[in-house]
């Protein structure tokens, strides 16, 4: 008796240690249907205890034949986001479980930064969740590392029914000839402005403007109200400008920049500098807002992603309206495009790929989902669900939906482009740094600065493409 107790105690101790150690190695991986981040730690310890007792009892009953329970399937789902998203997604998952008897969905979520730290540790330990939320900035990195499953076979077989999804949206998940992710929804870059300021200045803001119309408008509002604009020559805006000429920031396969004339860059820099000179464009050192409260403090008109409208309205405490991006005067192609808000991906080597794909299919096609989650992950990609949700929205969500619908009409959208180079983020940041030097007037030789940037960027991209 005594010996046996000692033995099981030691075994239990060993298991505790093993569990503890693997938990460390996997970067604190949890697997629990816990409803909120706050409780996850607690849940984890509970589960460890459960594992210990389970293991101990298994040892005691080791001679008994292992009773395998069939039809019980489990998948793990992981995403980033705030508490609201967590609550609605959990509800959606319960609906999925209801509609798929015998299926258990374990899930976890974190904030944006924590998500990528966690995901990379899970990736190293070969322990990625079956379904994971993916972002355009990380897609290539993960896909080229062989971590995401190809969805094409499932699309072909119909297990993932994308009949109502435009091909251009599906293409957003293509990396190296395979579909590695599916957009959860779309949003688009837009200009948001404060109608109250426009009214005060007595100006109309049209849905579509050329660059010179826009600048005239900014001058007028500044003269009448003192409100400045905060147009900033970020890498995105360089890209919009390039798209007007049928070009892109990166080339097709990400091996180099997509343009070879520095004057494209110089032009948008000069636009900012001229505006600062004249006074209607804010100087970088005068910016006081943190980010999403910008309309309360620094500007009356500024670009944003249409799906972020609600956040900006709340944080700035003012009503906003959306109009299309500014088009270059001599534009030959529309600059705007629908960008995937985020993606769903299936991990390569998932043991339950079919079920994971079914989960994504459920998200795409089941209209009941949208009664719960709304357009938190973007305007739905499937035509039917998009139409279904259209009438049910209000406030910022309705404005976003309306704007995306408006863009989709007529000839207002170009092709989306997904950065194909794993060094894309570095090159984007590099452009940001040079731009900062320019707008702080530290760098005054714009032509040379643009040339230098392009040379360095091409070198980085080429080295990564080898």
């Amino acid at each position, binding site marked *: 008796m005594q010996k046996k107790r000692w033995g099981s105690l030691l075994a239990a101790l060993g298991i505790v240690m093993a569990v503890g150690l693997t938990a460390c190695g996997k970067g604190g991986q949890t697997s629990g249907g816990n409803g909120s981040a706050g409780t996850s730690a607690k849940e984890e310890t509970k589960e460890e205890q459960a594992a210990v007792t389970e293991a101990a009892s298994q040892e005691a009953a080791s001679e008994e034949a292992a009773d395998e329970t069939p039809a019980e399937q489990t998948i793990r789902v992981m995403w980033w986001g705030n508490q609201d998203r967590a609550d609605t997604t959990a509800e959606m998952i319960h609906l999925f479980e209801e509609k798929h008897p015998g299926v258990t969905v374990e899930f976890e979520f974190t904030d944006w930064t924590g998500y990528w730290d966690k995901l990379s540790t899970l990736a190293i330990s070969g322990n990625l969740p079956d379904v994971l939320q993916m972002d355009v900035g990380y897609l290539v990195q993960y896909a080229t*590392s062989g971590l995401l499953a190809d969805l094409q076979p499932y699309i072909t077989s119909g297990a993932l029914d994308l009949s109502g999804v435009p091909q251009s949206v599906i293409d957003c998940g293509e990396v190296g000839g395979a579909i590695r992710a599916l957009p959860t929804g779309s949003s688009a870059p837009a200009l948001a402005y404060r109608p109250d300021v426009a009214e005060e200045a007595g100006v109309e803001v049209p849905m579509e403007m050329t660059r010179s119309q826009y600048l005239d408008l900014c001058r007028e509002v500044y003269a009448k109200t003192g409100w400045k604009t905060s147009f900033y020559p970020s890498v995105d805006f360089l890209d919009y400008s390039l798209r007007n000429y049928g070009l892109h920031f990166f080339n097709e396969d990400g091996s180099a920049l997509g343009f070879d004339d520095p004057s494209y860059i110089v032009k948008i820099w000069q636009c900012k500098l001229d505006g600062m000179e004249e006074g209607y464009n804010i100087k970088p050192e005068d910016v006081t807002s943190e980010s999403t409260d910008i309309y309360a403090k620094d500007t009356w008109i500024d670009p944003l992603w249409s799906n972020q409208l609600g956040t900006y309205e709340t944080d700035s405490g003012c009503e906003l309206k959306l109009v299309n991006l500014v088009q270059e005067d001599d534009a030959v192609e529309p600059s705007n495009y629908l960008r995937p808000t985020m993606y769903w991906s299936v991990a390569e080597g998932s043991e339950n790929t079919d079920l994971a794909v079914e989960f994504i299919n459920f998200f795409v096609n089941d209209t009941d989902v949208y009664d719960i989650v709304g357009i938190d992950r973007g305007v739905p990609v499937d035509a039917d669900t998009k139409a279904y949700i259209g009438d049910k929205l209000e406030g910022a969500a309705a404005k976003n939906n309306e704007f995306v619908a408006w863009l989709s009409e007529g000839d207002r959208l170009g092709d989306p482009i997904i950065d194909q180079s794993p060094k894309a983020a570095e090159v984007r940041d590099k452009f940001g740094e040079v731009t900062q030097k320019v707008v702080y007037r530290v760098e005054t030789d714009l032509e040379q600065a643009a040339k230098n940037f392009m040379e360095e960027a091409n070198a980085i991209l080429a080295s990564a493409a080898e």
Partner: protein
Amino acid sequence: MEDKKKRTWRQKTAAVLNKQWVAGYVFIFPFIIGVLVFKLAPFFTSFYLAFTDYSVLSPPKWIGLDNFRKMFLQDEKFWASLLVTFKFAFVQVPVKLAVSLLVALVLSRRSRAVGVYRTIFYIPSLMGGSVAVALLWKQLFAMDGVINVLLGWIGIPPVQWLTNPSTALYVLIGLGVWQFGSSMLIFLAAIQNVPATYYEAARIDGAGGFTCFFRITLPMITPVLFFNLVNQLIGALQAFNSSYLITSGGPLNSTLYYGLHLYNRAFKYYEMGYGCAMAWFMLVIIGIFTALVFRSSSAWVYYESEVK
């Protein structure tokens, strides 16, 4: 038979467990595990990774000295960040030591409320490492923050502390200096350990406050000054938090600490191998500075026990 065997087994274990050194090891066991798993293993792993191309998501590839070559020859931000870190360390450390010594002197006076003051002055350090304080600091120095409001009262126009490349670093240095509590406490203890008889003798000889400080207090606490100097220098060279939280290295990389650049490389651009190489180079730099301080100490640090 079996019963006997069991007993001997149990007796043997008991004999082992009853030895004193066993209890000792059992008690430090968690700590040893911690050191092995969280300190030593990463330490050696990072040394290996410094010579690899490691994107975190795929296995490391051995590339020899390429990381170091890139660091010294190609990465201009590497040198820029090193410069920022030196500037930060060489301004912050002396100022912080001076301030903490001054406060320690004031608080070493005998008075009833002195305990309360000590606590109050130590509070910034208690909260020091926290994210909240850094964010609060950011608010204080914002365009519409308290500092600018105060300046407004005395007629000074608001200053763009954090968005101006020439002031941003000093705001961060200010935050570091403000957290002087721990070195202040160490100074305080040292000051109170200086025998009162020295001062009495000096006073009889007609020495004033300043003379007492420079001729008695300061020489007597040089060992502690030395300790604080080394500690603060190492801490400052490894600085990360304040820049990450308040300015993210901006504006114009004027607050891009070495630590932050390393973090960006390793975790933002997935160049873990390069990050490890940077970390090892910093280790060398810290080693050099610490050695220099130690070397110089024989010239200015006074130990009572020393026979000259």
